[in-house]
């Protein structure tokens, strides 16, 4: 019996593959998006609405192409990406230690728990006027605000993850001679990692949202600013072009994060059981 279950696992021995799916598979997965684009194009070309209200998809793509040649769309995309990613990374560096120490140290919990409970549901974008006062007009208020907004979900996820570390894992480590001081590095941190990444996956879109909205409200370049300027010039093709780039950017960042998760958690059941 023991031998047969041994062989069964050996035969299926998966190693958490990260194979790239074929174009056809991708098309199948997103055919509803394709359908939407086709309907959009048809409606736009039938002249049911003016091109100002709904430009055709083809004209938007042309707009993206033209703006790319003029390099301003590229500059704004780079600026938004830089702000969103930097905020996200700084938030990770700040939030993970706070989350873990909240779960381990009573005083830290006492201090941060009420702050997190009140701060988490507060819309962080409402701090924008104050942040402009404090940090000026260009990059800093946007990055600080997005960092603040990302910190809360990561702190909460890390805290809950650390609290939920299996008691028996800690016990067996201590049983094998692991000291209290090295438990954190050897057991608690790796055991909390799946939850930390959950928090990160929630924080990433928040970072993009906060950066875009700040750019829309206060200028200083970036895709949010690009859309607002285009709207002021009644250039609806460019507004939609900006929107398209924003959604593609958000999608790509989220996909990259999913890949990172699969790589980091290659040992995890979710990766092992993932079907092609």
């Amino acid at each position, binding site marked *: 019996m023991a031998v047969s279950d041994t062989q069964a696992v050996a035969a299926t021995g998966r190693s958490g593959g990260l194979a790239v799916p074929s174009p056809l598979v991708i098309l199948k997965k997103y055919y509803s998006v394709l359908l939407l684009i086709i309907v959009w194009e048809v409606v736009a070309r039938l002249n049911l609405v003016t091109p100002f209200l709904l430009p055709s998809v083809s004209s938007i793509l042309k707009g993206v192409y033209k703006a790319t040649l003029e390099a301003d769309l590229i500059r704004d995309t780079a600026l938004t990406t830089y702000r969103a990613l930097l905020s996200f990374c700084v938030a990770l560096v700040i939030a993970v230690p706070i989350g873990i120490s909240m779960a381990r140290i009573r005083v830290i919990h006492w201090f941060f728990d009420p702050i997190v409970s009140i701060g988490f549901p507060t819309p962080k974008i409402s701090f924008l006027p104050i942040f402009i006062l404090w940090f000026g007009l260009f990059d800093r208020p946007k990055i600080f605000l997005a960092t603040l907004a990302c910190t809360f979900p990561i702190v909460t996820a890390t805290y809950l993850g650390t609290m939920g570390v299996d008691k028996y894992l800690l016990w*067996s480590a201590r*049983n094998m001679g692991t000291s209290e001081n090295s438990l954190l590095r050897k057991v608690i941190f790796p055991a909390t990692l799946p939850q930390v990444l959950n928090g990160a996956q929630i924080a990433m879109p928040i970072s993009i949202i906060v950066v875009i909205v700040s750019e829309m409200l206060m200028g200083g370049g970036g895709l949010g600013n690009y859309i607002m300027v285009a709207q002021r010039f009644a250039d609806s093709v460019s507004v939609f072009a900006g929107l398209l780039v924003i959604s593609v950017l958000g999608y790509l960042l989220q996909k990259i994060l999913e890949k990172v998760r699969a790589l980091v958690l290659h*040992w995890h059941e979710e990766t092992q059981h993932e079907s092609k």
Partner: protein
Amino acid sequence: MADIVARNVRKIYNPDKRYPVLAIDEVSLEVRENEFVAIVGPSGCGKSTLLYMVAGFLDLTAGEIKVNGKPVEAPGPDRGIVFQHFALFPWKTVLRNVTYGLEEQKIPKAEREKIARKHIDMVKLTGFEHHYPSQLSGGMKQRVAIARTLAFDPEVLLMDEPFGALDAQTRGVMQEELLSIWSKRKKTVLFVTHDVREAVYLADRVVIMTARPGRIKEIVDTKFAGYKSTEEVLESAAFAQKTHQIWKSVREEVDKAGPLDG
């Protein structure tokens, strides 16, 4: 040499709270060197609590426990433990799980790999060194846990319902393998189970505990000498008689514990 001596051990959970629970009361027990002792009793009788106190995970409320003549103060690798739900590190491969304890003992890298591979071979998992626990079946995970604990060579082996999460066939195979490993490398074993047959089959002596608060009700000798094979022991009248006697004694306690504790 390693023996376990417990004297007048008492454990109260939440002593300062509104509803303290007396889990264990006045337990005294001696386990001799290289003896295999099983503890049985109804659910909630504190048998795992007793084991965790020997391991050093839980503090005693009163009394004392000595292992090898030294009072237990903290967990340590002189007392290896195997848990019901394996408690393997899911982010480490089978090999790294087994080398973990050796690494903590500061054993040089080459040597700990050698020791680990020997123990992985002993539990029949050669070829699975680089698999992660999530890729293994329950029985295989428990083999890894046993290999991991035996690898750092504890003097005392504490087992907390180690086969309780396995299906009946796997459990039978694992019991036989544990006995064969133990007969080759004698250790002092304290084995908690709710399976009376398992206790009688594996142990030299079976300790029966009362319903909560857990006290020692009786200790039954269950050494079967002079049999050639496992089958012969299991089919003998003496085995059936002991199993029945202990089962009846545990059953009385289950009834006493009442439906709420069952």
